[in-house]
């Protein structure tokens, strides 16, 4: 059974890679990410002044997904990207706040019409084989990612967002220009694709990149080992060696955690963490998901905005957060998670406060004052969503609303709910990359992945303005307006960005959660 889930997760990874279905769960396994959010309390150690790091040492990290490929352009599973983040870098690289910083590039400019991105390469960045990165390598890597014919590789899954790239060229030996066929200011979030050496054929077996760690060995279903890159241009890693040990799932890794033979493991449940507290520090971050009770806006009762709003008031999101993760999740109020820090609308979080009397008053104005009943389809493999469902059912019962849970297999969920939109309500977590358009795109009435059948003319118009805006302030305003429409119009009942809990062995410091699905080993260090 667990194997089966693993397959689903791989499918999930594939879907995410296509940029088509970024669906996700907040459970114990797959594609998820931590983020440092203002309201988050990390382990107390994190807030004290850092102790002096000891250079060197090696650690074992538990992961729950095997790697689908070592070639960064071929790999599609989120769990693979998580690990390869340590070996590869793009022209730009996200930091723990979600800001895109230059990496292989030293700086970049976006033209005023948002159609030309110009990158200046950093001097003397070396690949792990000792060769200096040239513009040729960069142009080759970008073209391979974007699916240009001259660098086309049938194994590479082309990022659809890069389809607007019309040309990539190097005017001199330090500059690379990316030209677009239409204006887009958010493309920078997609230009993290790994820079790899041109004409190197063994990427899938002995990968070579520019990151703070070098590849050592890989044994399928067992382990993936990397070591410190002493030639790294930036801040060098503290640890000498990191071994990623591959487990079928968190449960099977748990005994080793109890024994203390793993130094770091993420995606644990609150209950599990309680048992680890004497050996490990528990770091709480976010999964970077929008977990919500998604309502099918075409289902008769939910066609009424009032019914949807009533549900928003009737559901106690704090109680869900307390029950499931001891209050370590982050409550959200709209369709964006806080990790997209520049665009997240903080003020909408408290728009609906739990108030069942108010909910009843609103419901009394509709045809459903005498009673409302619906079925919530939840993928059975995602324990945390099933748990959330149980709590919601109980909360609604107090108001005389009958909600029934129907647990379905993940593949059935994908077909029935996500693709065919044959459902009344569902609970799921949606993920996205850091481009604000990625998570809000689905609420467009014509979007392919608009599985809740949301249809709002004002939103469509506002979203269009937001994407087209070149000025950053305008863009923020439009995206804020988009979120406001989703909240006030109660597109669904947005609940929380679930808590992602990581156990870090005592004595090991510097664990840094990111707002994207990566694990950064270069910041870890031992203290005495």
């Amino acid at each position: 059974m667990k194997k089966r889930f693993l397959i689903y997760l791989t499918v999930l990874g594939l879907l995410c890679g296509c940029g088509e279905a970024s669906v996700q769960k907040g459970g114990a396994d797959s594609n998820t990410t931590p983020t440092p959010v203002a309201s988050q309390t990390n382990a107390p150690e994190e807030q004290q002044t850092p102790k002096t790091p000891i250079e060197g040492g090696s650690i074992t990290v538990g992961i729950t997904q095997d790697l689908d490929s070592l070639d960064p352009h071929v790999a599609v599973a989120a769990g693979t990207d998580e690990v390869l983040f340590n070996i590869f870098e793009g022209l730009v690289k996200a930091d723990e706040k979600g800001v895109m910083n230059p990496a292989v590039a030293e700086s970049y400019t976006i033209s005023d019409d948002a159609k030309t991105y110009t990158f200046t390469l950093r001097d003397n960045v070396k690949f792990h084989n000792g060769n200096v990165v040239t513009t040729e390598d960069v142009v080759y890597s970008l073209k391979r990612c974007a699916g240009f014919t001259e660098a086309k590789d049938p194994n590479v899954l082309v990022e659809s967002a890069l389809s607007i790239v019309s040309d990539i060229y190097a005017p001199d030996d330090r500059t690379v220009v990316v030209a677009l066929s239409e204006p887009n200011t958010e493309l920078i979030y997609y230009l993290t694709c790994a820079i790899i050496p041109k004409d190197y054929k063994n990427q899938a077996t002995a990968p070579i990149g520019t990151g703070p760690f070098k590849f050592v060995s890989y044994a399928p279903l067992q382990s993936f080992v990397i070591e410190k890159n002493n030639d790294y241009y930036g801040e060098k890693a503290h640890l000498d060696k990191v071994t990623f040990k591959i487990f079928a799932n968190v449960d099977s890794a748990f005994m080793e955690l109890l024994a203390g033979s793993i130094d770091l493991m993420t995606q644990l449940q609150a209950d599990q963490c309680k048992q680890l507290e004497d050996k490990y520090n528990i770091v709480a971050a976010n999964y970077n998901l929008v977990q919500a009770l998604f309502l099918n806006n075409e289902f008769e009762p939910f066609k009424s905005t009032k019914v949807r709003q009533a549900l928003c008031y009737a559901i106690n999101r704090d109680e869900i957060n307390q029950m499931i993760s001891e209050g370590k999740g982050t409550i959200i109020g709209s369709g964006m998670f806080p990790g997209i820090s520049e665009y997240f609308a903080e003020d909408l979080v408290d728009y609906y406060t739990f108030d069942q009397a108010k909910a009843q008053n609103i419901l009394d104005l509709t045809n459903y004052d005498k009673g409302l009943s619906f079925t919530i389809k939840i993928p059975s493999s995602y324990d945390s969503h099933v748990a959330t469902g149980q709590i919601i059912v109980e909360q609604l019962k107090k108001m005389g609303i009958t909600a029934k849970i129907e647990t379905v297999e993940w593949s059935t969920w994908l077909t029935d709910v996500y693709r065919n939109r044959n459902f009344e309500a569902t609970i799921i977590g949606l993920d996205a990359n850091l481009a604000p358009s990625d998570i809000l795109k689905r609420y467009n009435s014509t979007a392919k992945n608009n599985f809740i059948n949301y249809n709002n003319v004002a939103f469509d118009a506002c979203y269009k303005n937001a994407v087209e805006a070149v000025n950053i302030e305008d863009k923020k305003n439009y995206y804020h307006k988009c979120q406001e429409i989703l909240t006030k119009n109660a597109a669904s009942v947005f609940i929380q960005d679930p808590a992602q809990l990581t156990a870090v062995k005592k004595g090991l410091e510097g664990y840094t959660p990111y707002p994207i699905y990566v694990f950064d080993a270069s910041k870890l260090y031992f203290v005495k």
Partner: protein
Amino acid sequence: MMKARSKRSTIKYSKSFKAGLILVTLILLLALVGLFWTPYDVNEMSFILKNKAPSLLHPFGTDNFGRDILSRVMQGASLSFLIAVAVVGTGTVVGTVIGALTGYFGGVVDAVLMRVNDALSAFPGVLMALVIIAVIGNGKYNLILALGIVFVPSYVRVVRGEVLKQKELDYVKNMKLMGASDLHIIFIDILPNIKTALTASVLIGFQNAVLSEAGMSYLGLGVTPPDPSLGRMLSEAQSCLIYAPWYAVAPGLTILFLTLGLGFVSHGLAER
């Protein structure tokens, strides 16, 4: 019913049979009461009461939603019982009819049906049930149907074998000479004579059905949450096994006592 049985039993029953009977009666009582009354609302959640150790108010403790485990075990046991009864019922009725008819008439139909039967029983039961659930969807009733189908082949085999034996006996031949119809012979004359074999396999089947139901709901199939089910309770208890062991103990012991009891009873009956 129990009374009637013990009155008849002037013959000596083994100690294990009595122990089994006590265990089964105990759980059956718990389940029967649970059908109508539980100490607390089975689904009432409370954050304050989350994961509380057994106490006077909550003799089996509370679970990760602050729900009373005793109440949930009571209702979970009755659901398990009902599902097991339905599954065994389906299996027995369908299996007996098919087994008796094919065994009695034989011929091509018998050969074909028995090969289908072989094919069905070649799959591991749980896998087969999973496949059926995947096709027809999840839920209590679908689980009964799925497990029922899984249970049919074993009854077909037992009944067919017995009927084949009985068919050659003189009383059947006599009935034929007296002009009794085939159906009359099968269901009125032969069936009562294979009662012993059937009872034993029903009891063993019941034990298997309880375990299968627990196994399926452990995997998240069958009874849908928030309704309590022993198997699901076990799977939920797994992640807090070390600091809230009572959560796993109550449903685990219930399943253990029930299957152990049933095992003793069927063993005792066979020994008699």
